[in-house]
Structures are given as C-alpha cells and as structure tokens.
C-alpha cells in the first residue's frame, strides 16, 4: 500500500515539475500579446526560418538515416556496437560541445574548413550552417528510433517477400518501410522536435542574424533581455508547435509507436 502511494507521489512530482514551467509560459502570456508577437515581422521570420531549416534537416536525416538504420537493424558485423555508439554520441553531447565540435570540424578554421571553402560552400554565419547544426544534433534521435523500428518488424515478412522473388531493395521499399512506418514517423517527429529547439550549437556555429541564422530559440534568447513579454509569447508559439508535432505522431502513428520506441 505504502509502495503504491510512493509510486503515485513520484508520478505527481514528476508531472508537476515538468508541466509547471510550460504552463507558466501560457499563464504569463496575454492572448493579445501572443497575437501581437506573431504579427511582428522579426518573430514571424524567426519561426519561418526554424521551420525551413528543420524541414531541410529532417529531409537529409530521413534520406541518409533510413537506409543506414536499416543496415544496422538487419546486419550483424564486427564493430557494429561501436558504430551504433558513435552514431548516438551527439545525443549526449552538451549543445556547447556540439557547437565547438562543429567549429573545429567544418568551421572556417576547422580541419575540413579549407576543403569546404574550396567547393565554394560557406557554413559559418549562413543558413546552411544552421541546417548542419540541426542535422548534427537531431539525427541520432531518428537513427536510434528507426533502427528499433526496423528491428521490430517480423522477419517472416521480409523472408516471404524475398521468397516471392522480390529483390532486397524492393523488399526494403515495399515491405520493410511500410511495416516500420509508425516507428520511423515517431523517430522523425522526435528529431524534428529536437531540431526546432536547437539553440547552443546554432548560436556558436552559425551565429544569430534575423532572417539568416536567427531561429526561433535564438530570437527568444535575443528578446529575453530586452523584451521579456515578446520572448514569452514566442516561447508559447514554439511550445504549441512542438506539442502539435508530438500529438500528431501519437494520433497518426498510433500511441504505440512512441511507446515501443522507448522500449
């Protein structure tokens, strides 16, 4: 009995701690202010830039991550555990470390900086740099989830498809992806959520400039000191967008997808 009470208390504490700050954003924001802040050109631009860069990042992540995750889920090879661990590493990197790491790797003075420049590509202080930062921090979320999703597909489905004469490529597209779709969608949503919220690596690597590199989280930080109300309003919008993403995955992909991924 006491144990069950303990469990309930723990859940109540967790729920309060996690929801109170989010609720406070909406309590502190007058509805009129929310609309005002959305009417503000700079705020709209920041939100739009966030959506654009996140969408491009997710497209890149899906394009490369889906086949990579399929390989990891269906093959056993030496060093596989190491590869998986390395791919998941950005998951646990502090954003500041991610920013420094990106600068050291592909920044103007980084080890690949000269090569990238030779191709006429500029990343630092450019929108492309934001996409790189978002892709770096968000892709492990998708890779992890997609791997789990492919691994959970019943092998007999794939075997049947192969027995019926379909090539592996065809089976991958026609059987495996549809079967793993809820899990893949959940992974994409988590990655999208992470990309939309990215802050530190973007600021350090790509800088902050309206319309070019100032995504919504950076705009919130920029306003935090000078215009707290507008920062709150923009935060409220970002919370709403993120909640909508989470909710749509729960509804469309089935709540089961997110649950399974967590396992």
């Amino acid at each position, binding site marked *: 009995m*006491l*144990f069950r009470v*303990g469990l309930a208390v*723990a859940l109540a504490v967790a729920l309060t701690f996690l929801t109170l700050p989010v609720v406070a954003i909406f309590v502190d924001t007058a509805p009129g202010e929310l609309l005002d802040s959305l009417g503000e050109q700079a705020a709209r631009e920041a939100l739009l830039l966030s959506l654009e860069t996140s969408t491009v990042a997710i497209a890149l992540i899906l394009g490369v991550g889906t086949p990579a995750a399929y390989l990891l889920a269906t093959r056993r090879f030496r060093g596989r555990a190491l590869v998986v661990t390395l791919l998941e590493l950005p998951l646990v990197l502090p954003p500041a470390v991610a920013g420094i790491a990106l*600068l050291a790797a592909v*920044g*103007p*003075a980084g080890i690949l*900086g000269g090569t990238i420049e030779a191709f006429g590509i500029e990343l*630092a*202080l*450019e929108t492309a740099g934001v996409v790189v930062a978002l892709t770096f921090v968000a892709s492990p979320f998708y890779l992890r989830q997609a791997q789990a999703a492919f691994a959970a597909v019943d092998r007999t489905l794939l075997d049947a498809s192969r027995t019926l004469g379909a090539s592996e490529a065809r089976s991958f597209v026609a059987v495996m992806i549809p079967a793993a779709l809820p899990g893949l969608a959940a992974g994409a949503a988590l990655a999208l959520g992470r990309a939309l919220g990215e802050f530190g690596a973007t*600021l*350090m690597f790509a*800088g*902050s*400039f*309206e319309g*070019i*590199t*100032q995504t919504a989280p950076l705009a919130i*930080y*920029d306003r*935090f*000191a*000078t215009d*707290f109300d507008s920062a709150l309003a923009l935060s409220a919008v970002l919370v709403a967008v993120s909640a909508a993403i989470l909710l749509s995955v729960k509804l469309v992909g089935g709540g089961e997808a997110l649950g399974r991924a967590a396992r």
Partner: protein
Amino acid sequence: MRALVAMALFGAVALAACGDDDDSGGSGGRPQLVVSAASSLTEALEACSPRFEAADVKLSFAGSDELAAQIRQGVRPDVFAAASTTLPEELNAEGLLGKPREFVSNTLVVAVSKGAPIDSIEELADEGMKLAVGSEGTPIGDYTREVVGRLPADVARGLEANVRSEEPDVKGIVAKVAQGAADAGFVYASDVQAAAEELRAIPLPGELQPSVAYGAGVVDGASQPDLAARYVDGLVEGDCYEELQRAGFGPLK
C-alpha cells in the same frame, strides 16, 4: 516497501551530495558573495575576486542586459556590475539596485584576426566583409550602433549590410572573429588584450569613440549587503580596480 526506502535513501544521498558540491568552494565557512558581472569583465574579476578576503566570491558572467533581465525576474545576486551606466541606473530607478557607482572606462575597438589585412574602419564597409556585432539592447551592441551612427552615411550603410551575426554578448563576438567565422567585430579594447594571441585591435578615431563607463551597485535584497558594498569599493579603488587597469580597462574620465 524496501524499494521505497532505498529510493528515499538514494534521494537523500543525492541531495546531500549536491549540497556538498555547493559548499566545495567555501573554505572555513566564509560567507558567499554572488557577483553578476558583464562578460567583458571576466578575466579581470576572475583574477582579483579570489583575493577578496571577506567572502567567497561566486562570479556569474553574461551580457549586462541579460543579467539585468534576471534581476528584474527576481534573481538576487549581491553585486551587479555592468558594461554601462544606464542599466544600473535603470535598475536603481526601479528600486532593484542601490545607488550605482562608476568604476572603470573602456574603449571600443575593431577586433580583427592577427593576420587580417584590415587597417581602417572604412574597410569594414567593403563588399564581402563579414562582421559580428552585439545585438541591440546589449551595451556593446548599443555602443557599436552609436559609432556606426557617427560614420558617413554611405560607410554606415555598407557596414550595416555586412553584419552577419548579432551576438548576445561580447565574448560571442570575440569567438566569431577568433574562429574566422567573421572578419571583424566591434568589441572592447580589454577583450582584444585578453585574446591577444588571436586578435589585433584597430583603434577608432577619437571623434567616433563613445564614452564607455562601467557601473556597479549592491542589489536590493542582497543576502550580504555590507560585503557587497565592500566588493564594489574594491572595484572603484581597490584590488579589482588595479586588476582591471592591468587588463586593459581605463580610469574614469
């Protein structure tokens, strides 16, 4: 039941561990003094604060405007030291800060990387130049806008068009130039001195130079008001003042 006890114990141990952590800087139970300071003061205050005998000084650096915003949101450090006199005066007028005192001055310069072929502020308006500046509302950003406002209109326009990043504090600008992401940035002379291995300063012509004075005060509701006042004294004429002068800050004009 046993699991619950274990959990509770674990929680208690974790809390105790955190508590230890907080005190680890404290030697012999000296009181703690929390100082919120502009990020341009980082090197100098980190050097002089351990010598402040009456208390353990905990330093928190960020853009002056962010620190002011924190104080407005109810954060209560003991001392607030800003890279301007306007922010402390504003907080004073709002009843959040005791009467602020000016303690040092600083000079605005253009920071470029050491080998960069840039020699004058006019060149910052050249096409293809990438600049990092402080964002509006930060002291460094506002001083920079003051300087740009005094330039001939065509130079000012070209320069504004070259801004690629608006950084939340001066260290962000320094990092962008030191990393080669930006070609140049407006910072304080003391920042270039602190990063002398990577950066070179281009001085501004006298008529463009804004008056940059730093102000500090005791935060209203500070837990150590007397010690805080002593710390501010040290900024105005004591050990920290000397350290600031060595770090490239100037005396009050």
